[in-house]
């Protein structure tokens, strides 16, 4: 499903070039639950952004479902993000002026899913994350855990092949953090492929498939692949 070959990412900011990734090789199969760990500034988010097609590697090949990302134009990348990838962020990244329902509806709009089907899907997915009674609430009327549920619903609504989560519990208290973790585990058990960056030690309770990044490189690569 995901294959990365010698991925390097260099950020050029003014004078100094930061090499955030220094030749990463990675292989993720359908149905995996992969946890990315590593110290701050080691390149986890950078890897995730490339995986989510938000950013392109400086060199190296990223093959998603058999397609090499570097051959795609902006429109094709947009479609890929819309159909193939569900992104969950640490700081939720919900649209503030849209209700929970409308936030979840958004990717379906971009995909051109029609009125009635769209309604069914949005309602079903909000029901699934346990928010059927909060559909008309705006993000500022929701708790952190609820916000993250909306974000997860939004990531799921287009039936993506892979869910990417960058520290999804980082801004939550331990109770909601646990709930969100359990939600991810349920999704994995239903067959979703999940890649999650986390500092949460409880991740060990759910998976032993770790990618440990330090200084832009994957340690103990043998555990992956």
């Amino acid at each position, binding site marked *: 499903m995901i294959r990365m070959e010698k991925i390097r990412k260099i950020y050029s900011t003014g004078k100094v070039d930061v090499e955030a990734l220094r030749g990463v090789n990675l292989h993720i199969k359908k149905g995996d639950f992969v946890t990315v760990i590593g110290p701050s500034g080691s390149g986890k988010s950078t890897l995730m*952004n490339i995986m*989510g097609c*938000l*950013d392109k590697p400086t060199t190296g090949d990223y093959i998603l479902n058999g397609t090499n990302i570097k051959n795609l134009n*902006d*429109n094709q990348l*947009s*479609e890929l*993000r*819309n*159909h193939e990838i569900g*992104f969950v*962020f640490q700081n939720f*990244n*919900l*649209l*503030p*002026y*849209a209700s929970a329902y*409308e936030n979840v*509806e*958004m*990717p379906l*709009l*971009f*995909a*051109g899913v*029609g*009125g009635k089907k769209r309604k069914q899907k949005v309602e079903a997915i909000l029901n699934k994350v346990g928010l059927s009674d909060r559909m008309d609430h705006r993000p500022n009327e929701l708790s952190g855990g609820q916000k993250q549920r909306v974000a997860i619903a*939004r990531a799921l609504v*287009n039936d993506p092949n892979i869910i990417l989560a960058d520290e999804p519990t980082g801004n939550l208290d331990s109770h909601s953090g646990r709930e969100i973790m359990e939600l991810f585990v349920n999704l994995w058990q239903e067959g979703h492929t999940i890649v999650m960056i986390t500092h949460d030690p409880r991740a060990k309770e759910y998976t032993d498939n770790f990618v440990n990044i330090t200084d832009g490189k994957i340690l103990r690569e043998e555990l992956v692949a």
Partner: protein
Amino acid sequence: MAEKLNEFMKNMLLIRLFVRELKKERRKIFLTIAGIAWGTLTIILLLSFGQGLSTQMLRGQKGLGNNIVLMFGGQTSMEYKGLPQGRPIRFLDDDVTLLENSIPEIDNITAEYDQWGTVYKYNDKAVTERIRGVSSMAYDDMRSHFPQKGGRFLNNNDMKERRRVIFIGWELKKQLFESEDAVGKTILMNDIPFTVVGVLQKKMQMGMYGGPDANCAVIPASTFRGIFSNYYLSRIIYQVNDIDKSKYVEQQVRRVLSRKKQYHPDDNNTLHFWDTIENAKQTRIAFTGITIFLGVIGAMTLIIASVGVANIMYVTVKKRTREIGIKRAIGAKKSLIKTQFITEALLIDLVGGFIGASISWLIIKAVQSIPQESADFGKNMALQILTNPEFDWTVAISTGIILGLVGLLSGFFPARKAAQVDPMVALHYE
């Protein structure tokens, strides 16, 4: 079709979100919309009044005549075949016939006699005014002498049989008859009885010689000659069949008369022409110029207002960088982001434009409803000219086009900026 509808629904949600966000910016948006409304108001009013002004000017000129040339005799300024210079050139009745027969481009031609200080009497009322004798029954079209309901203009039999019939101006009618019906009544003109056949319809008359037609009366030239001792005509008036040929016809007239009256064909002081066709053309050109000028002023106001829209859109792009990043991250294409911002700018633009157009429409209707019928046309010409703004399709379409362009322009640059937002950077934007 389904695709279009879907596209529409999509934009509906985006517009709904936009409207919610704008509520936060109420003051700024209000000012922007007011700016656009003001610009629209300015442009529509300027164009409408400009257009009305031009129509009224042309109408006022028509009060004198419809594509006519008035011709007056002058005097020779060159010696010719032994004849001295300074010899007056005056018109005779047969000059009219000669010109009519020798110049095919002349459609209608009439002799005109003037007499001052004639006394009109009806019952116990007496008025001293002018009188005119005319030789063509087409004078009504030439000099805009259309009869009010119930009457008629002089006809061929009146001319041939030297009838004592008279066509009177509405002011003269008012002075003699007040509100009484005049047609069919007999009045005395220098103590000679005349039957009133018609009363001149009210009209706006800007150009005149001798005085306004409202105070004058017209009788057949043949009758006139039997009463007054005028030997020479006061002037000749003709109408040409092609308004672009008036200069050519003028040359022909000079040539034809030079042979009959024995003056040098190049002597331009012998005849004087008052070419109302040329005047009308120049008026039209001048007023087209004025209308364009007014339109440009309006358009500038609107463009300045649109800079306001562009500015607020730029600010929203900046404020919404994160939102744009989120949308891009979940699959919105650049084109969608672009469309969204352009739509939003157009929306502000259209709301402002609609408000401006509505207000100007109300103003124009209000001004138009100032009663005209009771107005005294002779005296309140300025009022009449100003109170006839025209809100027509040309005005509406040009305003619409300018508004649309302004909207696109004010949306285009911010939209381009919005589409270039890098989702990666935007998502880390705090």
